[in-house]
């Protein structure tokens, strides 16, 4: 098996404000995200040879992106992989460049969730009309089942677990205040987070990310071409994708205290990027904190914390901006917001800016290796993307 390591470079990125953007259509978000990326890369839309468009429910074909940007008669594929869609869109564009088929490709993810009553549609494992017997609830209950079992498995009381989860939320809220484009930009106290209304036991309101509109885009090319475009281009070190085979809910052996898709994607990405000790070697990580418990499990699944030791690292401040391995420096899904298929590209945007030293008030001192992680779906059927980036 080959490797994508150092074969693709990012030369430009864009990201819109995330939030309840009542006055923006999904095409406005495409234009805003992509034109920022064009400007950042110093190219024109006509320089794009192929594009990949990530969207779960806002524009179902590549033609929608072509129409918004007037990309005339170039190949554009729509990518849909639930919450991993953004990173997967980027991954497809990278392979397009690495194959030698295209010199410059665009990856764009946009989601207009707030045009739907309530954010986005309910339980949607299948894209078809169906027998309707599966439970039909928002995603929180999927992740709450993980939280329930995590507390039970490690013998944590509800209060002990609540404190740890709430600390993750407080951290991401703090980081959000340092992100001008974030959906939620206010500090919260630990007490507020701990006492928020329950949404699905054991998860409360502040365990859940924001449901937002937003778009983000990346321009990728070969390192050779990138060298002629800018000094601070960012190199792709690894691109991994792992999809669940439904095993978690078929096999009683699955323990509900880890997400196997994250473990598998992490392993593949570390191998490709030649990372042996992620906790030491990764400087910044943007991970999929759709709910605080998800971020907790990711610490352990990606090897940032030993099994069962995530709570200790949270208490120690390991993942705060000033900690050993800052996670979700821009506020994460919790505060930057979560327009499904745009999120992966937003995370890459943050890592790109950190690695370039352009992350403003939240800029880390050392940012040589950055990691992006997305996971979406339901227990057993998660789609997980992990990407690793390095400086040129």
């Amino acid at each position, binding site marked *: 098996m080959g490797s994508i390591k150092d074969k693709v470079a990012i030369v430009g990125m864009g990201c819109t404000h995330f939030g309840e953007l009542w006055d923006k259509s999904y095409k406005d978000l495409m234009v805003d995200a992509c034109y920022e990326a064009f400007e950042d890369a110093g190219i024109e839309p006509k320089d794009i040879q192929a594009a990949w468009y990530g969207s779960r429910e806002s524009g179902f074909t590549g033609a929608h992106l072509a129409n918004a940007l007037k990309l005339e008669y170039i190949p554009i594929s729509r990518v849909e992989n639930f919450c991993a869609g953004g990173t997967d869109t980027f991954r497809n564009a990278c392979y397009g460049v690495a194959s030698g088929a295209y010199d410059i490709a665009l990856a764009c993810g946009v989601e207009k969730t707030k045009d739907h009553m309530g954010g986005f549609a309910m339980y949607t494992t299948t894209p078809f009309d169906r*027998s309707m017997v599966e439970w039909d609830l928002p995603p929180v209950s*999927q992740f709450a089942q993980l939280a*329930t079992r995590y507390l039970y498995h490690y013998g944590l009381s509800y209060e002990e677990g609540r404190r740890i989860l709430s600390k993750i939320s407080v951290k991401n809220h703090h980081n959000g205040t340092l992100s001008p484009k974030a959906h939620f930009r206010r500090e919260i106290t630990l007490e507020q987070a701990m006492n928020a209304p329950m949404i699905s036991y054991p998860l409360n309101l502040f365990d859940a990310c924001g449901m937002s509109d937003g778009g983000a885009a990346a321009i990728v090319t070969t390192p050779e071409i990138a060298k002629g475009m800018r000094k601070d281009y960012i190199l792709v070190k690894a691109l991994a994708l792992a999809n669940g085979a439904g095993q978690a809910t*078929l096999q009683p052996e699955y323990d509900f205290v880890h997400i196997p898709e994250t473990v598998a994607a992490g392993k593949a990405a570390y191998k490709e990027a030649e990372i042996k000790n992620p906790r030491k070697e990764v400087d910044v990580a943007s991970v999929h904190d759709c709910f605080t418990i998800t971020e907790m499990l990711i610490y352990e699944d990606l090897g940032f914390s030993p099994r069962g030791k995530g709570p200790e690292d949270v208490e120690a401040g390991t993942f705060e901006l000033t900690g050993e391995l800052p996670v979700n420096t821009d506020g994460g899904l919790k505060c930057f917001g979560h327009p499904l298929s745009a999120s992966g590209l937003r995370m890459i945007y943050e890592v790109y800016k950190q690695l370039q030293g352009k992350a403003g008030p939240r800029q880390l001192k050392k940012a040589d290796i950055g990691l992006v992680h997305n996971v979406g779906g339901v227990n057993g059927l998660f789609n997980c993307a992990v990407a690793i980036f390095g400086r040129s």
Partner: protein
Amino acid sequence: MVGITAYGAYVPLFRLSREAIAKGARGEKAISNFDEDSITMAVAAASDCLNGMDRETVDGLYFATTTSPYKEKLGAAIVAMAADLRPDIITADFTNSLRAGTAALMAAIDAVKAGSAKKVLVVAADCRLGTPGSAFEQNFGDGAGALLIGDSDAAVTVDASYSVYNEIMDVWRADGDTFVRSWEDRFSLTHGYLQAVGEAVSGLMRKSKLTPKDFAKAVFYSPDARRYAELAQSLGFDAKTQLQDALFATMGNTGAASPLMLLIAALEEAKAGDRVLLASYGNGSDALVLQVTKQIEKIRDRRGMKGHLASKKVITDYKKYLIWRGLLPQEETPGPVRFFSAPAAWREREANLRLRGVKCQVCGTIQYPPQRVCTHCHTKDQFEPYRLSDKKAKIFTFAMDYVTLALDLPTVTTTIDFDGGGRMECYMTDREPEQVKCGLPVEMSFRKIIDKEGAHIYYWKTMPLRT
């Protein structure tokens, strides 16, 4: 000898205190949960009846009710599927009359006597609605009873029957009505109930040359407690010693299911040799002479009436009751974006209605829902069906949604591991939020998941073991 070879019953877990309906009203009535109806209760009673028995030998299922969720569509087919009975059996709905239960019973006896079937399962269920605040609402209770009629090993023989009909506008519900209507009590009870049951029982006595003294127990359908005693006395039965408790105080009048449920309650106390009189009412009356055999002792391991009546949760919130019955408009949850598909439901009928998973013939792994490729050994298409509906399970993990609008928050979802193998995700019902925890033993219950444009979608939920 043809007769009853097994019985089973179902009384919902919840009881509404009558005080909640009208100040000073006494006792409580059994009320179905928001996700129950006559079909789901019938399935529960059928499961109780078939407890430990070979379901392959059942040749027919008769479903009796006045409250089928469908005007045109066979309820018996849904009940037979959920009870996991063979597809090549007789199925029929007996409906539109409070006598539907005994009509189905007599038809089953005739079918077995005639040799058309060896075993026929009769299930009666009802959940009638009285106008909010009315005496009917106070009296009506929900429940189901099931009797298995067989050609051998009868625990109860059926020795004689006598029927009359009478055409009278006493109690009725027209097409499109939600609530049961009636004429003035003094007219309808005198010339309807008391007259018709009186004629049927007198006729039966003459026909079988028996007198009230020959019966250990008399079981009558009755609209209320007062008329019950009045009827017994007028027919010469001693209300204190011979009359089966009609369970008005604890359950209420369960309509077409009532005669069967009260008979089961009587059988739970009966000894071999006891003769029992059973009479129903509904524009006429069916009266039967039954006799208990020694076999009765072999079919006692069921929850039956006693077990179900003892297991209860009393609610006093009348608003909650109205919401459960769909009598108070509720705010709608946004979505879902996908819709019901009859072809999808049909393809999944073995899994969704029978609750059959599969067992891999190569590695033995039990899996649900059925797969094409084995989750464990990856062998393709080598499975045998495996029934999960009668298996106990334990909660592995769960969540409780307090936000998504539903008729009974929180909405509990569970991931369970079945004793003997197999894992499943589904909703939980009949639970107190405080009792839900990892490791909790649960059983499966057939419930209504959703109403969608006139389609009632049924599936299985977990519930705490009813003890």
